[in-house]
């Protein structure tokens, strides 16, 4: 059985290699024996830790500034620019890859999702309210980043103390599920503004979820889910190849159904892991 699961996982890794072409900035190193950062020196881990702590403070400052800007009736365009540039600078300073820390991955998600809306908006002309929607997404991804900073700290401390049992972040799958759920909720309004961007955002978040399940130290137990999700996602067209907004709306329904199916499989696998 275990051999079968290992084979399934290898198959899944091949699928992910293909998928990584469509999931922007997905990591290319697909296997992490001993954890993704187990080879880091103490100095490197301390640098990672310092970046995370500093980022937490910078994000709080940015949130406060934006909150007061809104009270001063600053335009959404100004607020979006401040949030977007601020987050990009913080995330870019780190020298990290998007998957290294969930704090970083959350910030990266906010930037990527805004970019998807901008690209689609340029094609058809923006719908009134789209910039406000980007502000909402950026603010919520900051909230998510601050939340996952806590699990990142446990992980980084585990690396510093050379405790192999915490050489994997234990919130990877939870993060992937939360990001996808967030996108599904956000798409309720976004779909009416720009259906193809909404499609691109949900598809991207499902790709991140798959990546997170694969990066989890229990990925063998999730091999069937990873393979299934890869196969299903591979069958969905790229955002730019959608034939129309009606096509995008229909495919969003299919993506949401797929997400619900995957959430249920993840919950069942997690339950069986706890029981064993």
């Amino acid at each position, binding site marked *: 059985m275990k051999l079968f699961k290992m084979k399934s996982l290898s198959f899944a890794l091949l699928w992910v290699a293909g998928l990584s072409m469509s999931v922007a900035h997905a990591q290319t190193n697909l296997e992490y024996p001993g954890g993704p950062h187990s080879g880091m020196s103490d100095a490197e881990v301390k640098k990672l830790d310092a970046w995370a702590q500093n980022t937490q403070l910078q994000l709080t400052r940015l949130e406060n500034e934006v909150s007061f800007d809104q*009270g001063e*009736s600053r335009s959404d365009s100004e607020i979006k620019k401040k949030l977007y540039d601020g987050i990009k600078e913080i995330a870019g300073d780190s020298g990290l890859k998007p998957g290294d820390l969930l704090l970083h991955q959350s910030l990266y998600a906010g930037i990527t999702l805004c970019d998807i809306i901008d690209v689609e908006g340029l094609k058809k002309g*923006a*719908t*009134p*309210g*789209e910039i406000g929607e980007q502000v909402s997404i950026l603010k919520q991804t900051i909230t998510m980043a601050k939340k996952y900073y806590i699990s990142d700290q446990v992980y980084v401390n585990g690396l510093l103390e050379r405790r192999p049992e915490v050489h994997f972040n234990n919130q990877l799958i939870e993060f992937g599920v939360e990001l996808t759920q967030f996108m599904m909720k956000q798409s309720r309004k976004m779909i009416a503004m720009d259906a193809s961007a909404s499609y691109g955002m949900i598809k991207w978040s499902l790709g991140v979820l798959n990546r997170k399940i694969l990066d989890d130290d229990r990925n063998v137990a999730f091999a069937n889910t990873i393979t299934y999700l890869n196969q299903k996602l591979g069958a969905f067209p790229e955002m730019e190849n959608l034939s129309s*907004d*009606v*096509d995008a709306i229909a495919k969003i329904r299919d993506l949401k159904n797929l997400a619900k199916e995957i959430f249920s499989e993840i919950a069942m696998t997690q339950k069986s892991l706890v029981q064993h």
Partner: protein
Amino acid sequence: MKSLISFLFLIMPMAALAGSFVQGLPDGAYHGKFRGQKKGTVNFIVRGYAGCDGCFIAYKLKTPELLGDRTVDLVAYSALPMESVNVNGRLTSKRYSLTPIGVDSTGDLTLPNDDPSLILNISKGVGTRDAEFTITSAQSGNRLGGVESMVFLWSREAPFEIIQPSEGQYRDVGSSKVAATVTSLKTEEDGAHSAHILWMGNIRQEGGDFLLKERLPGVYTFNAISYRGEGNQVRNMPAFIVMFVHGNGQFCFEKQDMMLMVNPVNHVDVSKMILK
């Protein structure tokens, strides 16, 4: 080079529109009855927008005969096409899902439920003002805004037109006293309008300074500005949906510009203020 980019930006939305989807219900107002009810009529006001082909915002307006004089019951819906059919060489849809627009706990505009509450089926005259259609319950469990069946057989002059907000003083109907002052009107890069409002409040709600933002085409949120020692901040409540309309003299919509503030929970608690 700069002019070439400007030219491309100008023609890209036009190119996208060239092969566009035709709305199954053209913009305008449609007149109908609740099934099995002889008294009273219901109006369905349709307004399309760029950004999502075939999508529109719809307003369901019960007439005073159903509600008593000077009472308004107004529900705003996001309407999404459910299919793509070729009718006389044009792509369109005969079926639409209608999902009521509401406000979430952060004071932002949203579709509170992912599932539509109503389904619209066009039986005759698709794509024309002579369309005949029925609206029935989506049987989804979402009952926001009501799920009564309706039959629409003819179009008519809309009781109101959706207009852009105007700066100035607005007064409560039946009173000469100023109820609200709209100032600092701005237009965002995406075409969304925002303004500052000094509102005197009503029996149920405190007055004060408010921020008005267009979140979907023609649909606004209304959030209080809180003046604090450390700076001004935008609060989440109260959660109104605001619309600016010009009445056509029908029902309780006088031939004047007005601001409607709709409670998204019951849709009956509507404050109507006329531009002085």
